[in-house]
């Protein structure tokens, strides 16, 4: 005999409510115990490959607000109430402005494993103001000439003169941001402080840059830089680095970054605690984690792009576990590694223009693109 199954409306609602409650219970319980930590950051810093372990260990959920460019970061901070962001991830050139605007808390250096870091980063100038620490370096990278090895050898890329080589006509690309491009061309002009230019130095830099325009194929955003270098549309890009070529190599492209004899630039990422954060203790714990061996290893290999790390222990692990990536990034033992380049004075820190207004550099860049 077949028993007919019947379900009244009341039974259906009751069962439905019970089932929903049962399904939601783990989430409700988790939500009760999980703390939220907010982060204002460049893309990629709060993705699972970076923070999953910290979240798991500390029962935290890191909620990011990603920005594009330091100026947008400053604008977002000034438009948000104090305490909106527990963590602020920034490039070094903006940290002094963060401090001046009172957007970040002072850090206690003894809270962090600075002794694990190369001594150049114990008192990194961009992160200290009046002998007080406000940002903890997380990782850094160099900007020089990124090139397709099928078209340009490392030896050829050893000088920015390469950019004017006739065989590269229409094969030079630009990442569409004036600061790194003008910075490396300023180094080509022989400026010891590439961003601190007199009027004469600035005029000369503009002249040099305009002379490059006939060689230029295009100006690209992040996606465009990746696709144009990979497809061979562009063979050489000045002012970018392993943050692009490292990503492309993972995808099988034969590209690398060379720091020319005239020198290269350094970008530096860091974490700070947002002013008025009500979870400052947890934010401090996060920065400690990222400065530790596991955090540093993760930061060197972020999916968004790889970078050099300041931790000696992190280097050791990279050399052991990811020797090829470590070599391209300049993290190897022996002469010519990333620290040697810094110590030899070939690397200058990327900064905002000192003597000119930022708008002047921006206007010139628009003019250059239009020429």
């Amino acid at each position, binding site marked *: 005999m077949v028993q007919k199954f019947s379900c009244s409306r009341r039974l259906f609602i009751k069962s439905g409510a019970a089932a929903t409650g049962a399904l939601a219970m783990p989430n409700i319980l988790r939500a009760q115990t999980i703390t939220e930590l907010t982060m204002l950051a460049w893309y990629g810093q709060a993705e699972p490959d970076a923070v999953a372990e910290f979240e798991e260990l500390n029962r935290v959920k890191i909620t990011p607000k990603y920005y*594009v*460019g330091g*100026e*947008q970061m*400053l*604008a977002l901070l*000034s*438009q948000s109430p104090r305490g909106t962001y527990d963590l602020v991830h920034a490039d070094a050139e903006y940290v002094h*402005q963060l401090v001046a*605007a009172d957007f970040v808390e002072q850090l206690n250096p003894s809270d962090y494993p600075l002794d694990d870091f190369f001594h150049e980063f114990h008192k990194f100038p961009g992160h200290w103001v009046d002998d007080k620490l406000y940002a903890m370096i997380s990782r850094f990278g160099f900007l020089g000439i990124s090139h397709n090895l099928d078209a340009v050898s490392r030896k050829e890329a050893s000088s920015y003169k390469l950019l004017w080589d006739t065989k590269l006509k*229409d094969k030079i*690309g630009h990442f*569409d*941001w*004036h600061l790194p491009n003008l910075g490396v061309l300023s180094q080509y002009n022989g400026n010891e402080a590439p961003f601190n230019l007199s009027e004469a130095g600035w005029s000369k830099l503009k002249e040099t840059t305009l002379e490059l325009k006939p060689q*230029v*194929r*295009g*100006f*690209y*955003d992040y996606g*465009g830089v990746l*696709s*144009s270098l990979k*497809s*061979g*549309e562009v063979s050489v890009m000045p002012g970018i680095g392993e943050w692009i070529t490292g990503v492309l190599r993972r995808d099988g492209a034969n590209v690398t970054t060379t720091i020319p004899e005239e020198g290269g630039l350094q970008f530096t990422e860091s974490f700070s605690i947002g002013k008025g954060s009500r979870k400052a203790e947890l934010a401090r714990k996060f920065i400690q984690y990222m400065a530790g061996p596991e955090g540093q290893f993760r930061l060197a290999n972020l999916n968004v792009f790889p970078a050099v790390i300041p931790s000696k222990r992190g280097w050791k692990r990279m050399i052991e576990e990811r020797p090829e990536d470590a070599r391209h990034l300049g993290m190897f033992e022996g002469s010519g590694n990333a620290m040697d380049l810094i110590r030899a004075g070939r690397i200058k820190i990327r900064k905002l223009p000192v003597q000119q207004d*930022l*708008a002047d*550099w*921006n*206007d010139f*860049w*628009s*003019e250059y*693109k*239009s020429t």
Partner: protein
Amino acid sequence: MQKPALSARRLLYSSFWVSPLPFWLTLFFLGPLLLLVWLSFWDVRNFVLQPDFQLDNWVKILSANYFWQAYGRTFLGASCVAAIASLLALPCSLAIGFILSTRAKLTVLGLFVVPFFTSYLVRVYSWQIYLTDNGVISNLLAAIGLETGSLLSSKFAMQVGYVTLTLPLVVVIQSISMLSFDRTLINAAYNLGCGPVRVFFSVLLPGTRAGLILGALFAFIFSFGDFVSPTYMGGGKFPTLAILITDTVKSGQQWPRAAVIAIVMIGTLLIVALTSLKLAYRRK
């Protein structure tokens, strides 16, 4: 006594349907436009917008060479697209209007709507496969002895992107005009001894003028404000006003200066649109 009551009801009925129009126009056009104008007088201090009333942004933008270069490039580019897309669309719309069977017309018109199912950005990215070094087109041309190299990051590629955006729309607009054209006028012209060329230029083109001008106008409007093609097909090498807006905002958070550029763009489009409408619907 019934008549006034009926008129009042009709008036109420009409008002009901008309009333959202001023509401929407105020909310989505007039309001944002006034906000944009107001914003163009603001100041930016330490990357933060400050309400103000100063003319610096207008002076700065209108006196910048690169702005006028971008303006000229954008206007010329959009005009070329309007002409190219209209010419390319004309044979298609003539076929849809006068040659194809009803079933075929509907199928072809449907096919011209299909491109809108896919994001324009995706369509432009797929063009890159064809136009790049060792792409399909350069390989085909190389096979017949024409070495072109990469066609990307060029004005040609930019036009290809613009036409990709606008052609389906222009075909549809022109086709509607052709389909509503009174065929007896063509027959009458033939009966009166006109040849095909004269029928085309003296009867068909004037008779479908509104559709042709509106098609060109839409192509102009869409390409005038387009950011995707100049960026991804032109490689950012030929900055247009849309690129200039993003550059202005990106560096220094200069929203007020970007507002000035946007207002100039809106003003230009209004003048072009009104002139085109006048041309399209003027009586001889």
